[in-house]
Structures are given as structure tokens and as C-alpha cells.
């Protein structure tokens, strides 16, 4: 796409926004459109002419400035300034003048006392899109972005969206740490950061609890280590364990899907049913072995168990892949040099596994930091940062400044983990699989190691099966918490009753939230996958200033705990100019930007397997970036796209911490409903609803997997690209 085409399209778009579409948001819905071209549905041109929005004249003037050159067919670098001016004018005016009139007092001499200005609507949206288009066209005309206007537009709009929906809310929220009672208070900020509630080491000397930072670090480290070791045991059995290992591999691979599709809280509930003081296992131990009933599950052990249940399968997936990627000839080479099996394992296999071990450790570590549901239900007196942040905001003592400071600490720990990983792995690359065929037989495990792995793996498998068995059964018996195991449809009926009054009526109390959830997940999933893959393509394949920044911002939302995101969204998007709270749109946006990193990472990994010369070949044949993307890159990325699609659909259905503040009367979500049930102590209904969700997600994921499988079939032999282990 040429710069001129883009600039003309952008101008057209902005002009439509100026003359046709309602400038402000329609508060009472589409019915207000009837007022057009006056009233609340007036386009900007009408508002300018009647003088009620005179401060927006620059918007019209800038558009008029861009028009002549474009009509004559010239797209110059000056368009960049016009585009930037448009965006600044719209947002500047939007922030300067809000619902209560002038917001920025220092502008009073210039603007006087303007009337209230409601949120931006479709007209403003079109003008903004046009402004970004003009900006991009100007940049492309200057030779930036490989002189490709399409790429320029994608980068600029993605950058704009990330700034608006990731960076802005976060900065907004974190700046709360600097304020006390509405005044700037750096001292309070410092005090919050080093508060004893975060850093106290009292648990070492007395019975009081330790600082929440230490708790968080301890939990995350333990979860990461245990998950990684468990995953390793399973992976070793699966890849090197001989015939019986294959069986365990199959079983465990089937289980890897479970943590993904399990709604929050449910594993914790099952653990309570099993190991609580009146739990099934506890009772058994008491009756048979006189082991006294205790409450050990509440606190670190319980949370740890729940988190490991979720993370171990993921560690297995990572390590299994890495272990398969280690070329057997390396081990054979070591053996021919006379090394014994254990020695080979220690000196060759283990070091080659290091990157995957680090990746698995880091992933589990970060997931543990962000986990909110399990510490909430099972934490007992054991507090971690994510729950502490939640209660600093939603608890009886409301203190956004404290929450923001704690959120900063959590962010710092997350980034620290990433930095450590980078340091440890350094620049070393462990490439063992090349395009060349490698015919070797994987070395068998040393006997002692194999025994250890089996001794760890099998009990854990049984344990996992028991936990999920409880979940399966719990929704269909009277009260699993008290051991009343008679079958009933009662809980399912409460949630999902369907009646018949002049047509089907969804009476059950869970229907509304279920429908909203499916709708929101179904809308956000393709957007997430699409945007994620686009961003991956931009980051991996295009060279442009600010690429690192763009990448950083996409990764940022992964590191921010959900609770922080939720509150930051409600703080940033409740008032004009961007007013989204209470709509389904804010849920969609929240999901899209939270799940974006997965799509981006997946896309980048998949793109690394696709030789860049394919893109370049298309370009030299006259395929612009758009054609290349559509005809070459996207077809080759299909598996990655489908995976991203499945993942974002499923996470949208199971996320809770970010959206608990964002759901509204009209748009409630399944997980928030479940949290409510748990809060009210209605475990059975919560479990029953979770079972319904699990079934829906299982069907979706399996369906999609089947689809990908078929998609891969025809292309399997296509390129034999180098795979980089530990990249």
C-alpha cells in the first residue's frame, strides 16, 4: 500500500468522522441516533458551527490543511505532523474539558469556563483513526517503516492502542502510590515501599507472619522448583522411559490441558474437600491411622499444592519438547567416549536442558506471582502480594496508594525474574536440532533416576486424578463438603434451569453470566489472536524505530497482576474522554490486552521457524506488506493463530482477578459469579458451574486441536526449518 492511498483513506475516514458520525458517545444507546444531526448525536461539524465546541476547530483546520496536497496526488512527510496534531487535539481537548467542565485549571485563561464535555463517540473515533492514518502515511513518505504505508499504519495504530490500554491505565494507577489524601506525598510513597507489611522478617524470630514480599517470593520459588522437577520427572519418563514411560506420557499429556481449562478456585475447593480438617482423606487418615485432623491445608502448603497442580503439566510440556529436541547423537558421542549413563546424563543431557528448565521455572514463578484465586481460597493467614493488593482496594480499609505501592513491588519482582533468567542464560544458544536428519536412539535413563522419576510421577498422577474426580463429582452430589454423596441435579438446576413460557426461558441464575462470558470470550479471542499475530509479525519481521518499546508494552500486560489491571481500567476508563465502564467493550478490551502476550510470543516463535526470505521473496515479486501478510505469512502461521485463538478463548472464560471490578449489572461473567458462590459458601453450585465451564472449554479446545491437526497435515513436509532449543 502506498503512502498516498493510505493518506487518502485516512482523510476520508476523518472527514466522515467530522461530518457524519456523532461526535460524542451515545449514553442511552442507539435510539439517540434519531436526534441526528443535532442533540446528543450531533457530528462535530454541527457542534463547531453552533459554537458549543469551538475549541475543536483545530481538528477541522488540520483536515483542511491535509486535503489539497492529497487531492493533487502528493503525500508528503508533513502529513505526519497533521496526523499527530489531530490525535493531540482530540485527546487534549477530551482530557482538558471533562464532565465537570474544565479539568486543567491552567488552561482557564485560554478556554474560560467551557460546558461539560461527555465522552468521545464514533465521530471522534473515526477522526482519531484518520489522524493515525495520516501520521503513518507521513512516516512512510519519509522512508520510515521500510517505506511501506501498511506497516506504518499497523505499527502506529498498535502503538496507539497499547499506549491507551496498557500503558496509560498502569501509569495512572501506579501514580496513586505517590499520592496521599489527594496530595503529592513522596515521603508516603517511600514509606509504603519499605513498609514492614511487605518486608518484615518477624516470622524468623517470632510467631508473627513475615512480610508479604517474602511470602510471595517463598511461594513462587517453591512452586517453580517443585513444578519444574515434577515436569522433568514426567518428561524424562515420557521421552526416555521406554515402553511404560509412553503410557505415562500419554496420560500426562492428556492432563496438561486440565489446568488451562479449570476455572479459578475449583482446584482449591477440591483440595479442601480432600484435605480439609473434615476432608475425605483427612477423615480416612484419622479413622485408620489416628493421624489427628489438622488445618495444614490452609496456608502455604495448600496454595503451593494448588499452584503446582496447575504448573507441573505446563513444565512437562516445555521440558518434554526440549528433551525431544536434544539430538541423541550428542549423547551417543559422549557414550562412545566411554562415559557411563549417569555421567552422560549429568554432563550432556542436563546442561542442554538448562534453557528449558529456566523457561519452565520462570513461567511457574511468574504464574505463581500473578495467581489470585488459590491464595484467596486456601491462603488462610498466609498472605501474598496479589491478595494483599486486592484487599487494599476492595477490603474494609480502602487504600489505593498502598495497593499501588504493593503493585509496584509485584511488578519489580516479576521483572527481576525475567532479568535473572536473561542473565543466567546469557547469550548462549543451544541448537541441537538442525534441518538434517538425526538418526540416533535416545539413551535410556540411568536405572536409579528412572526409579526416582516413576516414584514421583505415578503418585502425583493419582493425586491429580483424585482432585479432578472431586471436581467432577462435586457438582452432582448434595453436599460434598459434608460428605453427603447422594446424587442430585439440584445445583445444576439452580444455575441452569430452563423453563417454557411462550418459548424457552432461561430461569437459572447462571444463564446470564454464562451467555455474557461466551459472548465476550468469542469476541475477544479472534481480536486477541489477530492483534497478537500482527504484533508478532511487526516485531519479528519489520524494522522500525520503537520496536523494542512496542515489544515491551505487549509484554508488560503479562507481568501486571490482574487485580491491578482491573482497578487501573476502572480508574482510567470511567470518565470521558474514553468512557467504557459498564459496557461489554471494556471486558473485551481487558481480555484482548491481557492475553495479547501469548499471541505475540506464539507468533514470534512460529515466525522464527519461517525463513525471513519468504517475506522478502514476496516483496521482490511486488507483494506489498499487506499481500505478503495475507498470502504468505498468515497461511504459514495458521497453527499458531489457531492456538492463540483457543488460548485466548479459554483464558477469557477463566480469568477472574482482572474483571472482578469490571463486570457490571448488564455484563456479568461466569467466574465472578462463581466467586460470589464461593464467598457465600455454596461450594456445590460453584463446582457445578465450573464443571459446565470445563465441558464448554474442553469441547472448544479439543475441537480447535482437531482443526489444527488437520491444518498441519498437508504441510507437514513443507520446510524443514531449524528449531532452536531454548530460544
Amino acid at each position, binding site marked *: 500500500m502506498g503512502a498516498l492511498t493510505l493518506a487518502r483513506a485516512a482523510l476520508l475516514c476523518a472527514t466522515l468522522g467530522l461530518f457524519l458520525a456523532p461526535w460524542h458517545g451515545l449514553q442511552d444507546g442507539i435510539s439517540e441516533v434519531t436526534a441526528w444531526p443535532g442533540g446528543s448525536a450531533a457530528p462535530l461539524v454541527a457542534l463547531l458551527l453552533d459554537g458549543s465546541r469551538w475549541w475543536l476547530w483545530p481538528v477541522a483546520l488540520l483536515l483542511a490543511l491535509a486535503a489539497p496536497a492529497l487531492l493533487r496526488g502528493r503525500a508528503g512527510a508533513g502529513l505526519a505532523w497533521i496526523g499527530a496534531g489531530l490525535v493531540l487535539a482530540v485527546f487534549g481537548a477530551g482530557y482538558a474539558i471533562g464532565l465537570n467542565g474544565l479539568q486543567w485549571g491552567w488552561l482557564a485563561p485560554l478556554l474560560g469556563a467551557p460546558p461539560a464535555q461527555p465522552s468521545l463517540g464514533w465521530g471522534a473515533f473515526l477522526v482519531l483513526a484518520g489522524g493515525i492514518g495520516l501520521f503513518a502515511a507521513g512516516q512512510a513518505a519519509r522512508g520510515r517503516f521500510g517505506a511501506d504505508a501498511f506497516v506504518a499504519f499497523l505499527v502506529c495504530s498498535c502503538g496507539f492502542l497499547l499506549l491507551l490500554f496498557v500503558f496509560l491505565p498502569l501509569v495512572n494507577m501506579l501514580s496513586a502510590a505517590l499520592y496521599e489524601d489527594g496530595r503529592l506525598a513522596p515521603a508516603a510513597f517511600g514509606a509504603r515501599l519499605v513498609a514492614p507489611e511487605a518486608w518484615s522478617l518477624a516470622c524468623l524470630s517470632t510467631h508473627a507472619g513475615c512480610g508479604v514480599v517474602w511470602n510471595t517470593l517463598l511461594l513462587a520459588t517453591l512452586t517453580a522448583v517443585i513444578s519444574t522437577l515434577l515436569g522433568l520427572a514426567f518428561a524424562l519418563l515420557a521421552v526416555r522411559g521406554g515402553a511404560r514411560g509412553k503410557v505415562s506420557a500419554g496420560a500426562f499429556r492428556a492432563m496438561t490441558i486440565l489446568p488451562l481449562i479449570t476455572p479459578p478456585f475449583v482446584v482449591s475447593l477440591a483440595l479442601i474437600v480432600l484435605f480439609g*480438617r473434615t476432608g475425605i482423606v483427612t477423615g480416612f487418615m484419622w479413622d485408620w491411622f489416628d493421624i489427628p485432623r489438622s488445618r495444614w491445608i490452609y496456608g502455604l502448603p495448600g496454595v503451593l499444592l494448588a499452584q503446582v497442580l496447575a504448573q507441573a503439566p505446563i513444565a512437562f510440556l516445555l521440558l518434554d519438547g526440549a528433551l525431544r529436541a536434544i539430538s541423541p547423537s550428542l549423547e551417543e558421542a559422549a557414550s562412545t567416549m566411554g562415559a557411563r549413563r549417569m555421567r552422560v546424563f549429568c554432563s550432556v543431557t542436563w546442561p542442554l536442558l538448562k534453557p528449558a528448565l529456566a523457561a519452565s521455572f520462570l513461567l511457574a514463578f511468574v504464574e505463581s506471582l500473578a495467581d489470585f484465586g488459590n491464595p484467596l481460597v486456601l491462603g488462610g*493467614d498466609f498472605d501474598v502480594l496479589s491478595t494483599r493488593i486486592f484487599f487494599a482496594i476492595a477490603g474494609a480499609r480502602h487504600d489505593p496508594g498502598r495497593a499501588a505501592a504493593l503493585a509496584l513491588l509485584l511488578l519489580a519482582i516479576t521483572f527481576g525474574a525475567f532479568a535473572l533468567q536473561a542473565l543466567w542464560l546469557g547469550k548462549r544458544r543451544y541448537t541441537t536440532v538442525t534441518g538434517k536428519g538425526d538418526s540416533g536412539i535416545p539413551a535410556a535413563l540411568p536405572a536409579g533416576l528412572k526409579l526416582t522419576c516413576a516414584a514421583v510421577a505415578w503418585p502425583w498422577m493419582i493425586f491429580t486424578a483424585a482432585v479432578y474426580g472431586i471436581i467432577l463429582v462435586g457438582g452432582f452430589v448434595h453436599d460434598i463438603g459434608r460428605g453427603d454423596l447422594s446424587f442430585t441435579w439440584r445445583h445444576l438446576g439452580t444455575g441452569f434451569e430452563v423453563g417454557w413460557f411462550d418459548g424457552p426461558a432461561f430461569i437459572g441464575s447462571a444463564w446470564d453470566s454464562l451467555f455474557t462470558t461466551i459472548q465476550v470470550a468469542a469476541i475477544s479471542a*479472534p481480536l486477541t489472536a489477530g492483534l497478537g499475530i500482527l504484533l508478532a509479525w511487526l516485531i519479528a519481521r519489520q524494522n522500525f524505530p520503537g520496536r523494542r518499546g512496542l515489544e515491551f508494552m505487549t509484554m508488560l500486560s503479562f507481568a501486571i497482576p490482574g487485580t491491578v489491571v482491573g482497578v487501573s481500567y476502572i480508574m482510567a476508563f470511567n470518565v470521558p474522554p474514553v468512557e467504557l465502564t459498564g459496557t*461489554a467493550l471494556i471486558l473485551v478490551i481487558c481480555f484482548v490486552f491481557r492475553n495479547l502476550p501469548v499471541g505475540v510470543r506464539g507468533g514470534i516463535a512460529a515466525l522464527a521457524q519461517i525463513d525471513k526470505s519468504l517475506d522478502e521473496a514476496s516483496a521482490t515479486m511486488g507483494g506489498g506488506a499487506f499481500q505478503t501478510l495475507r498470502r504468505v505469512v498468515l497461511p504459514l502461521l495458521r497453527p499458531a493463530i489457531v492456538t492463540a485463538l483457543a488460548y485466548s478463548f479459554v483464558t477469557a472464560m477463566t480469568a477472574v482477578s482482572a474483571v472482578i*471490578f469490571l463486570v457490571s*449489572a448488564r455484563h456479568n461473567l461466569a467466574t465472578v459469579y462463581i466467586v460470589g458462590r464461593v464467598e*457465600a*459458601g455454596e461450594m456445590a453450585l460453584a463446582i457445578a458451574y465450573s464443571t459446565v465451564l470445563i465441558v464448554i472449554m474442553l469441547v472448544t479446545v479439543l475441537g480447535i486441536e482437531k482443526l489444527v491437526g488437520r491444518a498441519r497435515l498437508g504441510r507437514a513436509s513443507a520446510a524443514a526449518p531449524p528449531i532452536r532449543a531454548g530460544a
Partner: protein
Amino acid sequence: MPTPRRLLATGFAVTLTALLPAAASAQGNLTVYCSVQEEWCRPMMQAFERATGVRVAMTRKSSGETMTQIRAEAANPRGDVWWGGTGDPHMQAAEENLTVEYRSPRMSELHPWATRQAEQARFRTIGIYAGALGYSYNTTELTRRRIAAPTCWADLAKPEFRGEIQVADPNTSGTAYTMLATLLQVMGEEPAFDFLKAMHRNVNQYTRSGAAPARAAATGETLVGITFLHDAVTQKIAGAPVEIVAPCEGTGYEIGSMSIIRGARNMENAQRFYDWALSAEAQAIAGQANSFQLPSNRNAPIPPQAPRFENIRLIDYDFARWGSAAERTRVITRWEREVRAGAR
């Protein structure tokens, strides 16, 4: 490839329809933030819709979360009425000017405790139900341990209850704060803190949610759970082996409240709901929904299972003093320093 394109188009259409707010009905709309349990919220809203034709959009969240939301939305309120939930945050919202004054014509039908609370809040909130504080214990566990049944607050400090008491954390739960305030009013500040320190040794967990101890006592996860009595009643009716205790020294109570949010978009319907929710027939819904608080309307039927105030030694709870933010912070900070930090 026509299929992806069609998919995309459909996706767009679905997106658009999903994002457009639903059309207004003839009687208008009302958005209610509901802070009691779902089973009660839902029939309540359905009944109001049937009675008036107003379309109600309802969100159920705990009172803490609702308070957060109302605060965050203060510049541009989304909700109209906040119905239910313990009185303290309602009082706080009134104090922070987040809710508006409204004098319902039904005021005269209410119990004096309800009107008194309204007066203290300058009519920015009003009581819709009341529930006394107390505790419940698991009878199975009690007999197993051969402990004498507790009847007073003081019993809970006895050594035989070591590790057997569960109560919420006042940092996160209004219920727990009500307990603190109650004990301070029953015993006086210093003896109350001595008692709390003694009881601290018996506490196995400070839960975050106020109703959790009732559930824990019902399943036997703990022997004693300190909660509002109606939460315990709900468990007992569900068949749990629990006994409910209204402590002999006297106890405090919460007033479940209702407020109209400042800047409500549907003010007229909000007031309609307010008046209706104070009526005897609206308050009768509670009992049918397994909620056993005392209704604030004198003519409303009291659910037979509800713990009657006549049988409970109720203290003269000073909502104005103990509900104020300053006193609250002071008490919680002292509790944290002197009780929570102690060894168990």
C-alpha cells in the same frame, strides 16, 4: 477464501450488537448494586420488575467491592441504588458524599433502629434488615472433644478452644469490625483488648470473608465460627450440625442498608425502588430466599427460623461513633498491633 471473510463479517455484526446498550423499555431502567447473596438479590429484582415494569440491571458484589466501585465511579456514576450489605460501608459512603439524601414516605413503617441509623447518616442510607452478631459451633466436633457448650463471649477465651475458633479479619471484613466494635462496647476498651488477646490464641484463622467462619463451622473445618447469626441459620437449615449462640453478655448487630448513589442516572426509578424495597411485601422475599435477617418494616413477616431480637441481649450500638472512618482506623490499627501481631 470466502469463509474467513464471512466469519469476520459475522464477528463484526455480533460485536456491534453486543456493544450497543440494550434499548430502553417504556418504564425506564434501573441499575442496582446488590450486596446480599445471589438467591436474595435475584427474586428481589424480579419482583420489582413485575411490580413496576422497570427493567432492572443488577450486579452482585460484596459490600467492599461495591464500595470500591462506587468510589471509582464517583465522577461518572453507573449505578442507581446500592441495596443490601452491612451498614458500615453505607455509612462511609454517606460520609464521603457518595450517596444522596432521600426520605421515603414509608419511613413511618420502620423499626426504630432503622430510622435511627437513617438519622445518623443524614438520611443518605436506611436500614432494610438487621442481623445480630454471635457465633455458631459444630455439635459433632463439640461432642467428639467433650467440651462444654459455649454460651458467652468469655467462653471463647478458654484454653479448651485452642485452635478451634475462626473469625474474619477486620481489615477485610465488615463482620469482623462489627465484632471488634461490639466487644469494645460490651466490655469497655481495655478489657475487650485483653479478651481479644486471650482469644487470639484460640483462633486458627482470620478469614477474609465475614461469612466464611459460618461455613467452616458447618463443615467442621473449625469448631466455632464467629459470624452474623443469620449466616449460621442458613447453614443450619441446609442440614449442618451447628448450634447458634447469641452471647450472654449481649451482642451488637449490623443494619443491612440501602442507599441511592449520588448522580444516579435513573433517579426517579431509584426512588421508586427505594420505597418499594421498604415495603412489607418486598421484605417478605428474604425469608423465601433463605435469608434470615430481621426485616426493617414492622409489618413484614419475620421468617420463623430467624433469630429473634427478643431472645437476644442487644446492646445499644452506636453506629455514628463506631462507623466513622477515624474510629475505625484507630481500632483496627490497635487490634493489628496488639492482638494480631501476638504469638499464637
